[in-house]
């Protein structure tokens, strides 16, 4: 059973692609899901909103699979969490 973060990402990919959530797994290829480059940009937009993260353009170009998306989002969410703890309080 995928962890909660992965499940949220898979759900968003399914919603954005208008697919049944059962069709999207971490091992799904973009080809299987019919995801092209514009779809990828749309999914990243939805993920940015869901997790309050910013994905740099360069990283988007390197995303090739659902697994890349999950790992990339996890990294950015963790980074955001770290920054939240160490950032100085707003004055």
């Amino acid at each position: 059973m995928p962890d909660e973060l992965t499940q949220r990402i898979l759900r968003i990919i399914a919603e954005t692609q208008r697919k049944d959530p059962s069709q999207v797994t971490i091992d799904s290829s973009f080809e299987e899901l019919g995801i092209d480059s514009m779809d990828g940009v749309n999914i990243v937009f939805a993920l940015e909103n869901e997790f309050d993260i910013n994905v740099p353009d360069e990283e988007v170009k390197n995303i090739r699979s659902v697994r890349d998306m999950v790992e990339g989002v996890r990294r950015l969410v963790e980074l955001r969490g770290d920054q939240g703890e160490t950032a100085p309080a707003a004055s």
Partner: protein
Amino acid sequence: MAATTSGAGTGRRVAVTGIGVVCAIGKNRGEFQQALREGRCGIDGIASTANTDLRFRNGAQVKCFNAEDHFSLKQADMLDRFAQLAVVAAREAAAQSGIEWTDELRENAGIVTGSCIGGQSTENQGFYDVYKMGKTRVHPMTIPKTMANAGASAISLEFGITGPAFTISTACSSSAHAIGQAFAMVRSGMCDVVLTGGSEAPFSYGVLKAWEAMRVISPDACRPFSRDRNGMILGEGAAMLVVEPLDRALARGATPLAEIVGFGMSSDAHHVTQPSAEGAAKAIRMALRDAGIAPEQIGYVNAHGTGTTVNDPTETRALHLAFGAHATSLQISSTKAMHGHTLGAAGAIEGAATMLSLGGGILPPTIHFNERDPECDLDYIPNCAREAEVEFAISNSFAFGGLNAVLAFRRY
């Protein structure tokens, strides 16, 4: 030779007798031509967005353009910047053509402009006022300033032109489609003269955010066909042409700058943002057929060349498909590296660049060309302008939505 008759032997030969340009590398035709020869880059920091969260910082803006230098304050209030640029370019083109506006000519004259986003900067301000500032009303000129045909209408008022006037909006092919229509209207005899071209002014925050979301904008520079390219750079500007029958131009003692000899258009039916080499090649072939010339007669291609990952190799494949073995003999450049991607004005600005290059015998370079890409294997006139006597050239425009427009020009 077949090429001496335009329109594959039907209709009148069509001359361009005036060119007006205002863009990031020149506030008039002369400055523009000089900048093309020097390979000057007009891209730098976007002033209005210095303190925003935009992921890109650079654009190709028209510098030192003050509306009050060109319009009364009252006139300026009535026109979005994109329409102001259109009028300024049209004035320059009309002045160069030396055309005399008689009542009869005004009745037989037409206007065809292209614009992708029209006056969206004006619309942005109105929406900001009501959504963000909580105001209860927007400016009453918001609708007439925003309409895509505001430039065409302003040109009609400027010269008193009462013939057909309209605007074509086909994203990045808008003004190439517009010039193609003007060409057809003059060739067929519908109009004795047509003012045609396009204009765009996309530098408002909401529009820039929309482009940011597409993830096709370079964070630094536009490097068409170079392996290290990383996106396009937005630009603003306008170019307008005076298009008339060649025999009429000669009869009134005008100096033709170039001929428009062919126009081709196609739709990819492939994908809303990914280009298709086959669709582009079809438009190129159609332009050559319309001109009645063989592929081997084309010497220069002003490429669409956006500098995005996908466009440049796809356009290269299209050139291979359309020109076959002759593709390797073509001299190709994308001037977008200098003046940015001006969206609905691109076809007109690049058409102007093409004609000025044919007439001047100097082909503009593709600047910022650092490294060859195996998928872009043609001659892109890297970094330095080149002296060349070329008789025929094409200018490519390929739009989001898969709509392609290709213009063929002949040196006069």
